[in-house]
Every structure is written in structure tokens, then in C-alpha cells.
């Protein structure tokens, strides 16, 4: 016989998973827009809106569960964390939207060197997948892996920054500047996404062990 609380917990879990999928889709779409130049802005905007609405729903429902059922121990930690995790996923959607916004502002950039972004994009996409997996399985040990990946993302960002600040010629063309700006902005957003993926796995660690962030 399931507890009344379990029915509620299942619903929260489903909402979070929906958010996870939406978040992943929107980040993928944004990165695809960058790489291939496809116009996916309105779709990404729709995802972002949906994520915002879902986040509010999770917040509302989690509060209701706490008020009604007075959960304790792991159940309480889970519901608490869902609030943070939902926020994290809504942030993914927001950053994806920001990326699409940048692309729209900057306009088509077919000739840029997109390799840095593509490299970071791959890592970040893996990080998103890993954090969602850790959430599904409530695996507390994923955090370590994600921290290492986060470190590499940070390193990548810094190296790109150094690269473009070290001038290799005296004049840059207008289109080259647009390449640098778009790449830099997008890298920043990706770096934030990576941080949030780490926060999500921190939440998972907390749910399982009741210890908050074990890191550095």
C-alpha cells in the first residue's frame, strides 16, 4: 500500500523528468542553431517558456506536499532538492534561449571557426546527460566526474579568452569580430550550464547522504 506521499513524490519526479528532457532538447537545439545556422529561435523560446511554467508548478506542488504530509528525512531532502533542480533545468532553458538570442542578434556567421564552441558543447551536452542520469538513479558518485568535466569547461573558456586577447594581427575584420563575440558569449552561457549541471548532481548527493556539497 503506497503512502499518500508516494503519489505526490511520483508526480514531482515526473515533472522533473519532463523538465530534464525539455532542458536537454532546448540546449541541443540552441547548439544546433549555432553549428548549422538553422533558425530555431521560436522553438527554443517555447521550450524556455514551458520550462518556466513547469518550474513554478514544481515549486507550488513541492510546497503543497510539505504542508500536507510533513515529510521527513530522505523524502524531505528529495522535495527540497527538487526545488533547486527545477530551477537548474529552467536555467538551462533560459541559457539556451540566450544563446539563440545572441545568434539572432549577431546574424549569420557561416565562416567562423566554431571549434572551441563545438568542443565545449560536446562536454556540456555530456554533462547534462550525466546529471540527468544521476538524478534518475540517485547516484551520488557522479558529482566527482562532473567536477572534473566542469574544470575542463572552465579551462576551455579561459584558454579561448586568452586566445582572442592575444592579437595575432593588427586588424580584425568586422566578420571576425562577430565570430569572437558570438563564440565568447556562447561559451559563457555554456560554462554556466556546466555549473548548473554540477549543482544538480550536488543536490543528488544531498538527497542520498544529507551532506551538502562535498566539493573543493
Amino acid at each position: 500500500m503506497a503512502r499518500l506521499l508516494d503519489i505526490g513524490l511520483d508526480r514531482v519526479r515526473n515533472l522533473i523528468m519532463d523538465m530534464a528532457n525539455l532542458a536537454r532538447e532546448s540546449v541541443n537545439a540552441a547548439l544546433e542553431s549555432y553549428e548549422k545556422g538553422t533558425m530555431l529561435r521560436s522553438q527554443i523560446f517555447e521550450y524556455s517558456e514551458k520550462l518556466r511554467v513547469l518550474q513554478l508548478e514544481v515549486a507550488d506542488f513541492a510546497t503543497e506536499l510539505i504542508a500536507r504530509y510533513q515529510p521527513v528525512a530522505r523524502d524531505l531532502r528529495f522535495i527540497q532538492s527538487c526545488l533547486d533542480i527545477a530551477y537548474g533545468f529552467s536555467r538551462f532553458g533560459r541559457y539556451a534561449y540566450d544563446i539563440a538570442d545572441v545568434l539572432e542578434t549577431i546574424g549569420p556567421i557561416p565562416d567562423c571557426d566554431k571549434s572551441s564552441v563545438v568542443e565545449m558543447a560536446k562536454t556540456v551536452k555530456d554533462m547534462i546527460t550525466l546529471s540527468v542520469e544521476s538524478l534518475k538513479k540517485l547516484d551520488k558518485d557522479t558529482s566527482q566526474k562532473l567536477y572534473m568535466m566542469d574544470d575542463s569547461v572552465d579551462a576551455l573558456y579561459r584558454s579561448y579568452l586568452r586566445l582572442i586577447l592575444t592579437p595575432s594581427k593588427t586588424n580584425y575584420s568586422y566578420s571576425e569580430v562577430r565570430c569572437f563575440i558570438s563564440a565568447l558569449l556562447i561559451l559563457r552561457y555554456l560554462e554556466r550550464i556546466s555549473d548548473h549541471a554540477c549543482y544538480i548532481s550536488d543536490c543528488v548527493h544531498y538527497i542520498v547522504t544529507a551532506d551538502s556539497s562535498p566539493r573543493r
Partner: protein
Amino acid sequence: MEGLVREQGREIGRPVEAIENYKVVIKDVNGWFGAKQALKNINLNIKEKTVAAFIGPSGCGKTTLIRCLNRMHEMTPGARVEGQVLVDGEDIYDKSIDPVVVKRRVGMVFQKPNPFPTMSIFDNVAAGLKLNGIKDKKLISEVVEEGLKGAALWDEVKNELDKPGMSLSGGQQQRLCIARALAMQPEVLLMDEPTSALDPIASSKIEELVRSLKEHVTIIIVTHNMQQAARISDYTAFMYLGEMIEYGPTNQIFKSPNKELTERYISGIFG
């Protein structure tokens, strides 16, 4: 419940500080009803002027344990206790100690309010004093007033002290019983499910009372309502089938208990 630090030394009941700082020390207590053992090797240290809650499913022995702390358990025919219970370092089960005197130091409030039916409110609170030989009328009326104030009942009854005790509502009767127990100036107050028979508003008044009383008295409360234990206690002990499974700061027990059995019970998975 604010700012309680997790206790080191996860072993149950091993004191972190010196024994002298504990008001009640329960050492290797075993209890029987005839041949049936109801308490198995209980070890527990309770700090002075704190609220300790005993929780656990029906039949886990929490009421039996609390009744061992004022030597009421042995009054049941066939009941027996072994072990030591130290109050301020003195074993109440020592051969030289009179059980009747123990009950004056360790008071008790019961699940169903039990004011004496033929006595007025005043006489009820004074009963413990008068029937134990105190005759000083001034002293008695001062202690009665103090007890009723301590039980948050004074304002409601100060003009009706001669009315029968049974004319009060259930919640008021329970507070009357608390006042009666407080009049004996106990050092420890045992409460056996004091709000089980009361409506929510009366219950919450008693809960507020407990939080204010703990500044004067060490309180041990048995409750089957976990949320109540979470609300009012500083330390919580979880018992199951006569054994002490876990004891620690309430904060810790309810956020991240050490034992899985504890977690399952408080999450409502069984019991």
C-alpha cells in the same frame, strides 16, 4: 531545535560529555511483564532542562520505559525492572530509596486527564501537598497559584478556584493535571501521550506549555505523533520491540537518521 550540532560517536547513548551533566541516566534497564520482556538493555542519557521524546510503534515499550523512570512500572502486578536509573547521580532503584519519595521528584502526567473528581480546582492542585502532610495554608496557596501559572491555566480559573475540577474542558483538565504535578516541584516531568485525548487546539496549548516548562523542568514525553515530537523535542529516541534503536538531536533524527529502521518508521513506511 535551532543550531543543534550532530553528536559525534554514533553509538547509541554513549555520553559525549561527562555523566555528571546529565539529569537522567538510564543504565542497562530491562523490564518485564511477568515472563514477557518488554524492555531490552536500554541505555540513555537525558540532559537537564531539555525535552526528550520517545517515539515508536505501538508495543515498542516507550510507555513501559517512561513508567520505569518514576518506579510506576513495578506497581503493575507481575511487573519487574532490572538496571539503574540515575537522577542527578542517585539510583532511584537503590534499596535504600523509598519509591514513594521518588515519585515526588519525578512527576507524571497521563494520557487521559485524571483530576480527582470530588475536589475543586484548588484542592486538585493542592492534593499532592495536602495529602503529603503540608499544612501551611499560605504556602499551599502560593504553590497552587505558581503551579496554575506554570500550566498556563491561572488566568482562566483564578476566579473559580472552588469549582469542581471536573467542570473544566478536556484541555483545561489536562493542564490542571500538569499544574498538580508541578505543585510538587518535581525536577523531572514525565508525560505519557499528554495530548492524545485532546483536540488540536488544546493540544497545541499543551505543546506551547512544554516548550516554556523546559526552562524549569527536564521533560520526557512519550508520543505516537511524530510531528509533535519533531515540533517540541530537543532529543528524540526511537524504540522498537523493546529496544532503543536510535537516540539523538531531533534535528538529526528527522533530517537524516543513522539507522534505516528509524528512517522507515518516521517516513511512515511502517508502524
